[in-house]
């Protein structure tokens, strides 16, 4: 597991952890707090392909439904099945709970993502 400082981020609140050619994706602590109690996580199908920025899946809480976008392009290689019965894992530890993983098709796209500091700064600016 990594600390948030080692992750990359999108303004839409997804984080990315890279292991070789695989990008593990989850949502930030800020996002899970805004959502409230998560009741359902729709998981993508293995081997589905997505472009960076495409909507991959959905997270539902008691009061909201939020889309999850692909930070990079790739093919779904893993999904976190634990979330089927325990969607609240994301609320409990957002940075250690991945939702799905993509086999990246173009790792240079990682350069378009924000660092932890840049993401935090973005959140502060949004709050104003």
């Amino acid at each position: 597991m990594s600390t948030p400082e080692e992750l990359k981020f999108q303004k839409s609140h997804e984080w990315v952890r890279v292991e070789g050619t695989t990008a593990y994706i989850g949502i930030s602590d800020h996002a899970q707090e805004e959502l409230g109690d998560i009741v359902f996580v729709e998981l993508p199908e293995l081997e589905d392909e997505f472009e960076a920025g495409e909507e991959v899946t959905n997270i539902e809480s008691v009061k909201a439904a939020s889309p999850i976008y692909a930070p990079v392009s790739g093919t779904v290689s893993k999904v976190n099945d634990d979330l089927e019965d325990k969607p609240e894992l994301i609320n409990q530890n957002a940075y250690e709970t991945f939702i799905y993983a993509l086999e990246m098709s173009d790792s240079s796209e990682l350069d378009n993502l924000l660092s932890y500091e840049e993401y935090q700064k973005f959140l502060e600016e949004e709050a104003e």
Partner: protein
Amino acid sequence: MFAYLPHTESEIREMLSGIGAASIDDLFADIPEDIRFKDRLGFEAGASELEVCRRLHSLSKANTEAVSFLGAGTYDHVIPAVVPAITGRTEFYTSYTPYQPEISQGVLQAIFEFQTMMCELTSLDVSNASLYDGHTAASEACALAINSTRKRDTILYSATIHPYTKQVMATYFSDLPVKLVEVPEKGGIVDLEAVKELLDDQVAALLVQTPNFYGFLEDYAGIADILHENKSLFIVSSNPLSLGVLKSQGEWGADIAIGDTQPFGLSMYFGGPSVGYIAAAEKLMRKMPGRIVGQTLDEDGKRAFVLTLQAREQHIKRERATSNICSNQALAALATTVYLSTLGKEGLKEIALLNMQKAHYLSERLLSELPVQLYAGQSFFNEFTIELPKPARQICERMEKDGFFGGVPLHTLHPQYSERLLMIAVTEKRSRDELDRYVECMKGALK
């Protein structure tokens, strides 16, 4: 509870002044002048109760009452007295949406039972609190299919579904990037070979109907597998009364079942209100449209009912919602629920058989004694289409003079149908005497 609570003149004045309106007419200011009814309703102000009743009674005499063989989606069925006795209770009749479960347990329980009954009838996993009518349900089912399959924009629908369903679907999808493709009919039923030819990786679902619009039964053996292999969904529409004796949609392998519950406890009402039902496989639950009631436990551990899975709905999904249905046909669905509770499984089967038997008795007499034939050599439930030697409308006009609504001339529902086609529905309400007189009446009309 009181059935009617009138306002006094001074209460009305107080409320109007409270909102800054000068008169009740001001509340209708948004309705354009040129479509407002300005005539009197045929009464002088201050007419006595007797005068009003007398006038209304004479107006009602202008209606034609006749023995009905009308169908095409709306049928003349028996309504047990217990149905209006329960729906007429003010707690149900004028209750609002059950958003506050703590004061709506009766309504919520009734809806939960309705949902359960729809699942049992269709052999599918989940259902909702009802939709506007069968045609809306078909459109919502297609939308559900499009939203549950990735990158597919095509709906195949059978030529043998109700023409109103086709029209509603066309309206529903008129501004969306969805292609509606009609599968031709062959011999009065859907051409399944044509389905195989039209199937490609853009097809989200196939929509069919059995009994179909002509009343004929369709055989879907093997179709569900072919569709599922293509990753398409299977949507089957059925008159729910037919499910009392015929194979359910779930048993055909359908992913979504839809239809209209008007035959269950609802009058013909000149065409509405009605109740649409939709049931689906569990995997489609999260995108199902409309309201859903769920069962849970309250803080004392007692069973309670609530609206649930609300993250699907418009007020949470907002512009990302896949349907803008946020209501249901609560009172009409209640009538259906009471009707089904009264009949039970055995009663439903009995009524369905009666319908079939009477329809077949009539068709056999007509086909053997008159110069008419079935539109196609297919089996049917309680409704069938025949071809007459003269325009059907003419025949019906003559039969009306003898006290019969002889059936629906298909041409009146859509010009694509021949003028000589007549669709006849026979329900459990039609007595043997009425059926025999119908035959004699049509003989006379055909001379």
